[in-house]
């Protein structure tokens, strides 16, 4: 759906986007994560045709976005981070205005905007003036507006900024609903917990570089490693380490008084055998589990804000 190849953008000497290559398949809900100034908005603006890259290519549905602007505009729906509305314009007129910008007939606009307003839960606000809506409602209306021409790709830049918790939940539900309808969605956000709940793939940017990208579980696996085991114990630490080291491919990552972290290449059966051997050697094992990462720790590690972060990313990228 969206293919970005070696994209560069600079503002004077500042490199905003540096050699960004990214592929987002059709139907994905892709989360763009990164600190302020990472280059997310710049990338989004280039994808939407609001900015010209210094170098590189953008293909949307197989169409070159830099050469065929008119065609691309039909394929993209854009929701910016900050946007205003027109005074003295009703919700249905707002939809009509943007629909007619795509040269849609009045009848078509009316039919589609009825459906969209229902989708975003604003069907009872059709006759209400847009400037009187709450921020959350305006945001949902903006999403409906971006969908009026039935674009294949929906791009949202920080859609949840400034929204109250309820409006955020509504927005999340709306986006999941749209994804289930087959829309490809690109969303940038700072709220990592929300992204992890709805996105199936992510891209982490920092200082203009794409640090990691792909399916969330794949990125996690790449960064944290798939075979991290945490064993908690009451006593017998030394024995436990000795037993563990007897198994092939086991490396002790850390060993505390009551917790041992290790990486391994064992099968489930071998893990069970190892734990059994520890118990047989009088180690009091109180529990063991596979290490699970979350988006926050992933982000911190990838952007190098957690110890060993950059090394992990380099390793996972290899």
């Amino acid at each position, binding site marked *: 759906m969206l293919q970005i190849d070696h994209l560069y953008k600079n503002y004077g000497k500042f490199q905003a986007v540096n050699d960004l290559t990214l592929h987002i398949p059709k139907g994905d809900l892709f989360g763009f994560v990164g600190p302020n100034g990472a280059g997310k908005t710049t990338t989004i603006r280039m994808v939407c045709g609001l900015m010209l890259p210094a170098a590189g290519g953008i293909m949307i549905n197989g169409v070159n976005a830099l050469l065929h602007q008119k065609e691309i505009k039909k394929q993209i729906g854009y929701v910016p981070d900050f946007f205003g509305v027109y005074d003295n*314009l009703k919700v249905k007129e707002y939809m009509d205005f943007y629909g007619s910008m795509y040269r849609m007939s009045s009848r078509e606009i009316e039919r589609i905007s009825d459906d969209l307003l229902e989708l975003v839960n604003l069907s009872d606000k059709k006759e209400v003036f847009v400037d009187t809506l709450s921020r959350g409602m305006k945001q949902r209306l903006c999403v409906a507006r971006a969908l009026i021409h039935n674009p294949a790709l929906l791009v949202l830049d920080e859609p949840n900024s400034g929204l109250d918790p309820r409006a955020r939940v509504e927005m999340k539900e709306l986006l999941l609903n749209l994804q289930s309808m087959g829309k490809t969605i690109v969303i940038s956000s700072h709220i990592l917990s929300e992204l992890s709940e709805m996105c199936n793939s992510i891209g982490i940017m920092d200082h203009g570089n794409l640090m990691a990208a792909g399916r969330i579980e794949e990125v996690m696996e790449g960064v944290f490693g798939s075979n991290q085991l945490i064993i908690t114990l009451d006593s017998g630490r030394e024995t436990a380490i000795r037993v563990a080291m007897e198994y092939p491919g086991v490396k002790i990552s850390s060993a505390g008084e009551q917790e041992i972290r290790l990486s391994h290449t064992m099968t489930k059966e071998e893990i069970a055998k190892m734990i059994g051997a520890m118990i047989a050697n009088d180690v009091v094992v109180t529990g063991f589990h596979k290490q699970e990462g979350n988006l926050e720790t992933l982000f911190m590690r990838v952007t190098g804000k957690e110890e060993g972060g950059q090394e992990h990313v380099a390793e996972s990228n290899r």
Partner: protein
Amino acid sequence: MWLNPIVKRDVRVQSRSMKICWGVFAYELILSFVFFVAMMVIEQGNRYSTNNIYSALVWLYPVLAVTQLIILGIVVPVRTASSISGEKERQTFDIMMTTGMTPFSIILGKVMTAVVQSMFFVVASMPVMALCFVIGGMSISYLFWFLGVALLVSVFSASIGILCSSLCKRSISAVIMSYVFYIVFFVGTAAPFFIYAIVEARRSYQGMAPYNHGENTALFFLLNPAVYLIEFFVKVMSGESFVSIFSNLTGTVQKKELISYVASGNWWMIISTVLFLAVSFSFLLLAARRINPIKKRKVKV
């Protein structure tokens, strides 16, 4: 029929606002005031004259028409100068640029809105203007002439405003720049004629060369809004060409001079109109290019 959505939206939104009502009220008030002042002056002038007052009343037409054109010339750039920068300030510009509309159709929509509004004002002033025709002495065709000139003034002023709006980030800067453009057109087009005349007068005074009027430098006046309007009203009121009279002041213009052909008949008005339209169109193209974020330039792939 597809109506530019920007025109449709802007007209709808502005018609709901009280601003437009107050605007029309102020416009009519100014015209009425000018009308009564002009009537008083005419009446005073004819008090001790044997001339028929009705022959003097025809001058109400140019007085009211000039007043309207001046108002349009002042107001239209203000409206268009804030149109693109206003969208940017309102943060609706980016959304607009990602829709199916081309930059030129966005610019055209903004200009058309300004023209529609100004013509709305002109039409609203018709009852006052009609008084000039009720009294007699004026043909109704002059009314349509006036509408045509008002339309041209609106298009020209709007194109200046929209260009400045595309160049400036803030509305106030765009408005100021629009008036600077006006000065360039009013003064800049008159400058070659007067500079040439002064230089030639000095050379002649110093006995370096016989005085050469260089009447062809008056061709720059083709793009001077003031000369255009004066030519129009002199033509309407007396049937003569102001430019022809002006360029013949010295009586030295040769028939072979280009100015003598251009100033004959209605050619000055026709050529000047075409030039103003061409300049307006090029301003619109420049503005459209200016707002287009993806300008045609090479991107290394």
